[in-house]
């Protein structure tokens, strides 16, 4: 094999590789976005320093863009000025909002998911805020909560060059041993937020004030069959207001894909009770969308399934909604 043959192979191999017609505007937009993020990070760091009390700084670290971090380059052209070294930034943070998936503990020792809208002050994708909601058990559905003790807070989230994440918690005794479902509550939440952006986080370390919690670190998602509630009423969410005709979204892992949806009116009377076939049966997780039309009023939607073993109702997930 000659070197010339290698050159031809390279040339012809990339001959069909085109470039995006809007590449230059895309770069220019990224430059502007980066400039804004650097300003916000400076403000965030300044703010964190300002609230440092008793040596404990509240430091919010998020990865601003889903780009693999560069390997250190030779000194001739590397090392940018650190954001801390530009003390002139006076920008006020511009809050943005994001809709993020958050997992909560719930009935039957399983996890449930809600999409919540969070406010992001200093850039990032909302992973910090999603974890905060999860830790506090701040769900719309009163049946959902947290598996973590009261007072637990997120201190920082970081990702290493290998993509491995670390969630540092505080407000807990150092001796805290989280139960496996509590760990999964955070692992599912964090990985879901990143997965929405197409980033697969390979593993998550959980620390309390920098000290790893006991367990098989880094943690990964445990099997959904053992972790997630068998049936979720995804939408409408608890407390939602919907129009007369609305979409109901169910997901779950149930035998023969057979779920049921019951609707009760404000007085508790059953308005209807239908079988809903999910897209696939257990052990896979299937989904179903159906359209319901109801007269205005307050209703409770109850998703459940019937046990093959004894005919009892299982896996109830109910949401009260308003139809107007």
């Amino acid at each position, binding site marked *: 094999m000659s070197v010339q043959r290698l050159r031809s192979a390279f040339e012809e191999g990339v001959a069909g*590789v085109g470039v995006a017609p809007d590449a230059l505007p*895309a770069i220019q937009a990224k430059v502007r976005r*980066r400039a804004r993020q650097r300003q916000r990070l400076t403000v965030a760091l300044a703010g964190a320093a300002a609230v440092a009390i008793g040596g404990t700084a509240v430091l919010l670290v998020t990865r601003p863009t889903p780009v*693999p971090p560069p390997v250190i380059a030779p000194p001739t*052209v590397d090392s940018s000025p650190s954001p801390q070294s530009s003390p002139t930034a006076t920008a006020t943070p511009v809050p943005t909002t994001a809709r993020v998936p958050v997992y909560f503990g719930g009935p039957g020792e399983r996890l449930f998911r809600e999409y919540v809208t969070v406010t992001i002050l200093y850039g990032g994708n909302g992973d910090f805020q999603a974890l905060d909601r999860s830790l506090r058990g701040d769900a719309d559905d009163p049946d959902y909560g947290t598996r973590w003790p009261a007072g637990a807070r997120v201190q920082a989230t970081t990702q290493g*060059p*290998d993509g491995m994440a670390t969630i540092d918690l505080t407000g807990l005794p150092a001796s805290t041993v989280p139960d496996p479902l509590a760990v999964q509550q955070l692992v599912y939440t964090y990985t879901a937020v990143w997965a929405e952006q197409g980033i697969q986080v390979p593993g998550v370390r959980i620390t309390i004030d920098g000290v790893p919690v006991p367990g098989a670190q880094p943690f990964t998602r445990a099997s959904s069959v053992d972790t997630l509630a068998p049936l979720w009423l995804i939408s409408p969410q608890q407390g939602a207001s919907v129009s007369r005709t609305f979409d109901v979204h169910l997901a779950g892992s149930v035998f023969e894909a057979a779920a049921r949806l019951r609707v009760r009116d404000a007085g508790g009377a059953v308005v209807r009770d239908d079988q809903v076939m999910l897209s696939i049966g257990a052990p896979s997780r299937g989904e179903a969308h159906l359209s319901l039309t109801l007269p205005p009023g307050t209703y409770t939607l109850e998703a459940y399934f019937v046990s093959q073993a004894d005919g009892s109702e299982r896996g109830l997930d109910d949401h009260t909604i308003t139809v107007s």
Partner: protein
Amino acid sequence: VWSVHPAVPADEPGQWTADEAVTRLFATQYRPLVRLATLLLRDPGQAEELTQDAFVALHQKWGRLRDHERAVAYLRQTVANRARSALRHRNVVDRFLRRAVEPDPMPSAEAGALAAQGGAELLAAVRRLPTRQREALVLRYYLDLSEAQTAGVMGVSVGAVKSHTARALVALRRHLGEER
């Protein structure tokens, strides 16, 4: 804020603003860099993303570079570093997810014409080389860089470039020999 370009842009790179440097270098370097990244990474979409980020990084560094040759070297180096980093990240993810190796998304238009000459087969063999060996080959024989330039981009010694290149060629010849 993106500055408004002067009506007659300065032709001396030392005079360019960071915005001008990005625009000027984009015109000549963007496509070759995307192709370089594609050869290193196998994924044209990710290659383009990564090349755009290299230009964003250049914008930040322009104040220190202020030189056409150094800027081009910086872009190549950033693309090579980020491609290496992306491959490492991809490997970690693959290992954790125990995912089967994805089908190669490189455009396979060459499959027909080149297969006869073994071009596709040769490229496939290049893709199986260790990262550093592949980098050395692509920089030397796709970008036609000298050994010294290749060493600069890879951040290694000229001796290391020679040995990576030699080993890569031996591996390729062995691989092609075995298949015949």
